[in-house]
């Protein structure tokens, strides 16, 4: 496989995980872990079902991977995730010594690999990791928009969003 189409293939798998999250009422973020061109773990956000705000897709995928692989394998494993890892996950990925991270859209609220903080390169006791953003970012954003147009019934004070329309525009016209 060409390198470009390989990246595209794995990001599409991550987007599929995001779709599944949306179907089950989770924030639609999905990811896959890729070792030696094989998917060794996949995850989607699980914060609502688990009632634990820290159960992000990255942690679910790592947990799945570690059932059949040792932690040291993460040094040669790449992550494809639909949204830039948050500050929590950016630090976790560093501690797990991920080889590289490919993400779809940036995360202006919580992004830990460039948007808010740069935990992939800041001082730490673990080596830095490279990050590549912008792969299928429109698709990742659309997943999020389809989610946030819904009401969050689990929040203490759900906000009514009856009159919202799905925004499908990008760039200057957004």
């Amino acid at each position, binding site marked *: 496989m060409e390198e470009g189409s390989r990246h595209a293939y794995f990001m599409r798998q991550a987007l599929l995980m995001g779709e599944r999250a949306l179907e089950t009422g989770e924030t639609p973020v999905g990811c896959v872990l890729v070792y030696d061109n094989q998917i060794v773990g996949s995850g989607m956000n699980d*914060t609502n079902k*688990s*009632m*634990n*705000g*820290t159960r992000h897709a990255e*942690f679910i995928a*790592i*947990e799945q991977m*570690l*059932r*059949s*692989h*040792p*932690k*040291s394998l993460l040094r040669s494993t790449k992550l494809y995730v639909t949204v830039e890892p*948050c*500050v*929590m*996950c950016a*630090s*976790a990925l560093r*501690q*797990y*010594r991920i080889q590289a991270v490919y993400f779809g859209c940036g995360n202006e*609220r*919580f992004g*830990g690999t460039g948007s*808010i*903080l*740069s*935990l992939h*390169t*800041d*001082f*730490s*006791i*673990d080596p*830095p990791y490279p990050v590549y953003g912008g792969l299928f970012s429109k698709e990742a954003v659309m997943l999020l928009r389809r989610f946030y147009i819904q009401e969050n019934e*689990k*929040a*203490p004070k759900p906000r009514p969003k009856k009159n919202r329309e799905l925004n499908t525009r990008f760039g200057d016209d957004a």
Partner: protein
Amino acid sequence: MYDATDVQDILRDVEPLSGRVIPVRTVQEARPREEFADAYVAEVSVKSASKVIKALDNAFPRDPSRPLNHLRRFAKHTQIPDGLQSTLIKGEPSTQTIFTLITPPLPEVEELQKLLAPFAPPPETPSESSQDTRNIELQTICIPLEPPLTVGQAENWSKTMWPVVFNPATPRATIAPPPQTLNRVLDSIKPKAGHYLALARKVADEAENSGLGRRVGAVVVDPELEAYISATNGDIGIHWADAIVTVAGDVRYARREAGAMSESERQLGEGPNSNVQTYNSDVEGGPELHALMRAADLVADARRKQDGNESNRQLPLNKLEKFFLSQSEISGTEPLVDPDDSSPVPGKYQKTDTGAIPKPIDRSREPRLRSRAQGGYLCTDLDVYLTHEPCLCCSMGLLLSRFRAVIFPRQGRMITGGLASEPIIAPIPVPDFTNEEHEASEATRDQDQHKLEGEASTEHADPQTGRLYYGLHWRKELNWRALGFEFVEEEVTEKSAEEGVAFHA
């Protein structure tokens, strides 16, 4: 199963740490970030001032996320800073004209000149009257983008840059918690912080001695229960422990990976895991096995159980963890704290072989962990007491779990920590608001960090250890915020964790 009387002994033996609780300042408080940008100044006729505002706001709408309300829109000749007078005031100062400020994002010069031309001051002598003299001249000046934090800063900027207004309410709202909130929480935390932190160390001891993890512990307290208990029981006995929702120790060596034995199972014999002596990332488990993340997960697990779901807990629990979990999960059938321990004889000497029969105690609600029906949501409104400054991952996990407050001993600072915002011996801040000097110090800071990581960070680094001060508990950029406190012990009993083995707590 746990032994309830054993746990009561542990709780009775808790010797509270003595010291002070002090708020961890936000990074913006510790190092007020001063941002500056170019702006235009144009001289207009004083009579058309209101029309100028209207025209400018119509043509170039202001960015609502950055309203720049601290900058005066007009300055009279007398209000122009001394340093700008020679550039701005041409000829004799006139009371017929006024200076207006055009703030970033800056429009095209020609467009702006065209817009303002009708409001240009009338020519000085009627004889010179022609189209050409109705020209707007734009001067570029430097303005502060952030509102001033103090009256002094406002005065300084007004004297050197452009007249600014000081509003005590504006800066606090974004860069630091409101003082009344901070003080209210500080007052509620102060009385028993020493107890909960001392118990966190007991939890940490269990974690280490079991071989399951490093010596790191967390105690989660519901401040509402705490207030109820101190109102009804005062300082009696071990009732302070009734406000604890869950405790959790580090279990980084307890997870099986790839079906193999875990690091703790690999270890022969009792006692601390041999891995605690060094940092080897291959055997460090992961941040979800750290004390804080486990505490958040135990809360989630208890709530899932309340909802009738199966627990998916796989990792072993220590005695204290089991005890407090039972208090949070089940509804009132197993009260384990003896209510009558106001006896002058300490409970441990009363214990007989038959064991004390626990009696139910009156509590405001059962079980301890507020259910979802009672408004329980993640770790909202809960406080977490830690033995160490949490790693960056856990610091953000704390925010995503919506804890109200986090408290850790200053001795437990870690170079990998995410909460501290400045070195302990802070350099005496030199108030200096001039632009040039500010830029110079920024440059040196960035250079230092180049040496460390090869890539510049925007965070503040400690020159000795290289650690960065993130103050993650309260950052205006992040959506969720918690209050952060350090406990400064009167007598320090152990050396600072920052000097020990560097790991992620």
